[in-house]
């Protein structure tokens, strides 16, 4: 069937603020300058069971300025901890009503950190066998009730919503490096179509723990792993104070991706890779994996 109903005007939004948390810092200009100067955030990782491993890990980040209750940090897995400061900085002094502000994030791997699952696992099993009586007994005592929730991908968005008081439309995309760009594309569309007055959109991912290193080895991934969160504040394309304009480009399984150049300095940051590439390159990106959708976002200088 011939389909002649292609989309009309391209969807665009202005980027009015950027929040970034990565191994080379939490200020975009500084991160770009350090990469341009040849610096790398890749260093030896201190991870039990992974001698000699290297990666681009983030120190901290400090969550205190953004938490409404300090104990909430205990509920946050690593991607949530990276995302919150990035989102808070992107939100900045935005004066609009947070009731309608959109939240669109791409999240890759969402591990439960702190070894909680391992403690529970050993208490629930007899050698290599699941012992249902132990699960119901000692395992039950050791099993943190919030562990299943902590490991849900949408918790990163949930923590941003809760800590920053944001109630607008939103969604969490999961996948590879394209996930953050998919979220960004959704945010651009939501703002351009008037479904929200502004949006925070981006990606977060963490690949520098023992489990992630094992998974990468099994999948045959080369290059250093990393962790990062990048969040852009999107407003209508004619908003004052725009840093640059973004336009939704192509998306599909037949769109060829390009290679993010930042990986040598910041490692492979999974769902954050595409948005990271965009803000560091300050140019068009097409991001994705061979087996999945690749997404394009075009960068238009102001």
């Amino acid at each position, binding site marked *: *069937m011939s*389909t002649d*109903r*292609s*989309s*009309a005007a391209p*969807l665009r939004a202005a980027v009015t603020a950027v929040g970034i948390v990565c191994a080379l810092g939490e200020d975009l200009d500084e991160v770009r300058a350090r990469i341009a100067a040849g610096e790398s955030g890749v260093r030896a990782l201190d991870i039990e069971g992974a001698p000699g491993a290297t990666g681009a890990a983030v120190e901290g980040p400090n969550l205190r300025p953004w938490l409404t209750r300090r104990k909430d940090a205990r*509920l946050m897995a690593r991607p949530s901890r990276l995302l919150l400061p990035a989102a808070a900085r992107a939100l900045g002094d935005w004066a609009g009503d947070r*009731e309608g502000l959109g939240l669109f994030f791409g999240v890759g791997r*969402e591990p439960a950190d702190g070894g909680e699952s*391992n403690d529970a*696992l050993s208490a*629930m*099993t007899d*050698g*290599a*066998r*699941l012992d*249902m009586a132990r*699960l*119901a*007994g000692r*395992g*039950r005592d050791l*099993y943190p*009730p*919030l562990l*299943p*929730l902590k*490991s*849900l*991908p*949408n*918790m990163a*968005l*949930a923590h941003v*919503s*809760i800590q920053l008081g*944001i*109630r607008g*439309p*939103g*969604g*969490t*995309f*999961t*996948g590879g490096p394209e*996930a953050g760009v*998919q979220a960004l594309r959704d945010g651009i*569309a939501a703002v351009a179509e008037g479904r929200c007055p502004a949006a925070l959109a981006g990606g977060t991912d963490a690949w520098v723990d023992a489990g992630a290193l094992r998974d990468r080895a*099994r*999948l045959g991934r080369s290059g250093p792993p990393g962790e990062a969160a990048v969040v852009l504040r999107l407003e209508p394309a004619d908003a004052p104070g725009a840093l640059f304009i973004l336009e939704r480009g192509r*998306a*599909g*399984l*037949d769109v060829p991706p390009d290679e993010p150049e930042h990986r040598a300095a910041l490692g492979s940051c999974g769902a954050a890779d595409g948005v990271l590439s965009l803000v560091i390159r300050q140019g068009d990106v097409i991001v994705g994996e061979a*087996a*999945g*959708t690749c*997404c394009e976002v075009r960068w238009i200088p102001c």
Partner: protein
Amino acid sequence: MSGERRRVVVTGIGMITPLGADAPSTWEALLAGKSGIQRIRRFDASTLPVDFAAEVPGLTGPDQGAMKITLIDRALDEALAGAGPLPYPGERLGVCMGSEAARPDLGVLAKRVKTREMPSRDEMWRATPRAPTDHVAERVGALGPTSTVSTACTSSSQAIGEGVLRIRRGEVDAMIVGGVDVLVDPVMVTGFALLGALSTSGDDPSAASRPFDRARDGFVLGEGAGVLVLEDAELALRRGATPLVEIRGWGCSCNAYRITDSPPDGRGAAQAMAAAIDDAGLSPTDIDYINAHGTSTMMNDSSETRGIHTAFGDSGGRVSVSSTKSMTGHLVAACGAVEAIITALAVRNGVMPPTINLDNPDPACDLNHVANEAREQPVRHALTNAFGFGGSNGSVLISRWQEELG
């Protein structure tokens, strides 16, 4: 906002639930008020805090990921058969599925910790949230945008919303959307029980899920899959397809409240419902039926009730409401799609499935309940709600198909 935009219709539906292996058998069971909740059969749950759930009968597989692929395959087969051959080129066809990561069997995990054995690459892929999306895209030959939404219990509702928006924008001509989840395993049952989220009223499992009832005490874990074929209405008609219903509105919001609790005033829920109604260009008085999220937890059901009253104002006590989770259990990432299909059937057939076990409605849930028996009544427009842990809310507005907008 409805103006000249493309209209989106559903031309194929498929589901597999604890009540039936396809849409007709599930629908028949729903109208008969049957419960799909029983003692857990897949493993010995006798020592767990909760020993009942809503399992898909006979579902087996080497791991949860494989079971999810089995479920999505069956729902997809049914949806594609109903839609008939889709004539669109691959790049004009997209896929969006709601799904969470598959959890490894705890016994297998324990063995691997001891032996340092790694899962196969296939198993690792199956465990990712995107595996059902990739699988469906490969099966239908989609080359257009594919994506996976993981927003807990709102996941597949959002997948439908994504599909609608992509067709409206003209990015694609058709979308395969839906969701799948398999949660009935020892860790999930124990974990959700410890959260205090699950019903512990196990004397009669079929009576455990009782949304809006005074005696409700939690939800019942379930599993299943739902798939919908969405098409640009004009193109669907041009190819001779019969639209089942129209998806006319979509709204979503965040609660900004707590990870596990819903706000007592139902503010976020109201915002999502109001956004869907506004998106459809309708008013609350146009809505005849709400398939509620209605989980059977104390908090959700009263919060959702307040949300309905806020969004609907004076007509909040008029609109008919039921929660089919009373029969299917809570299908989590799949519930949005399965309940959208149920809502589509209610609109198409003019029958609203009931909330069973609603013997003593909670005064805090003062709604026009379709209690215990299906209600025959023309349904012009209906909402189906999905609200997730972490405070994500989605509401899909489904309308009877009419060539002229009513």
